[in-house]
């Protein structure tokens, strides 16, 4: 049963670049399990802050939330009203990474001191969500690292066991 359409963008970092139209991939949501919770129908940060559609008079939920884009007609909220259309999206505002200050910080080596304003820090954190989907799950990575760290510490202490 077709319930609606989930439109996925090509990548969080890309889609937030200013003035850049991106293609989206759309696919049918084929089972009730794939229905999207009500909270996802509301733009988390508001379309005026993040993204606007350029076609079909649609609203677009925030890019940073759940790392995917949802589209619906301005008039409709039910999943049944969702359109099955590929859309172009355009970032409404430039983001913090485009600022010369951040470009300069990025070019500096690891460990170079970092000074930010609260607003910059807030936007950086917001955009960071889902940016490294390639990482192992936190639980696995932490377990592995803790064993290494513990081994290093306890090897020395263990000698006086």
């Amino acid at each position, binding site marked *: 049963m077709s319930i609606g359409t989930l439109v996925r963008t090509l990548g969080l970092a890309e889609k937030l670049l200013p003035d850049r139209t991106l293609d989206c991939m759309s696919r049918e949501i084929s089972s009730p399990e794939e229905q999207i919770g009500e909270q996802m129908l509301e733009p988390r940060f508001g379309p005026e802050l993040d993204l606007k559609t350029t076609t079909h008079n649609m609203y677009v939920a925030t890019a940073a*939330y*759940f*790392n995917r884009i949802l589209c619906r007609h301005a008039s409709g909220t039910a999943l049944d009203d969702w359109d099955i259309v590929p859309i172009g999206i355009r970032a409404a505002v430039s983001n913090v990474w485009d600022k010369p200050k*951040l470009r300069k*910080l*990025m070019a*500096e*080596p*690891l*460990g170079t001191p*970092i000074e*930010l304003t*609260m607003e*910059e*820090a*807030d936007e*950086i*954190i*917001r955009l*960071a*969500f*889902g*940016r*490294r*989907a*390639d*990482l*192992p*799950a*936190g*639980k696995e*990575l*932490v*377990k592995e*690292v*803790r*064993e*290494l*760290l*513990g*081994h290093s*510490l*306890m*090897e020395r202490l*263990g000698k006086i*066991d």
Partner: protein
Amino acid sequence: MSDLYDTSVFIDYWKGDTAAFTLIDSARRQPQSASYSPLSATELWQYPRLGRQEEIEYVALTRYFLQEAQLTTTAAMKAGQLLRAYSRNQRRKLVADALIAATAEERGERVVSRNDRDFRKFYSNVASY
């Protein structure tokens, strides 16, 4: 009572985990309402796949929105005592958990982690997400 976010929260947020999003979003809305252990920075920065952008993101979060839960001598001694009950091999695996748990206990905070089972060996006020 406030929370101490374990390292897994940061990784899972980068990864796109919605539960981790809720935790970090809460810290953004109420700066300084949660804390982190500096041990998390060591754990993250020994990982070669994290680079300058992640460093800037981590600093943005920890310096501006979270409290630093410093490791004190008292907490370190407590962690050492807690570890006595375990074999040498187990102590290797659990030393960081014991240090973070003792830090949270000293501060009266709840540890929030995906590795909650290990933390519960040392401290009862632990939550998964």
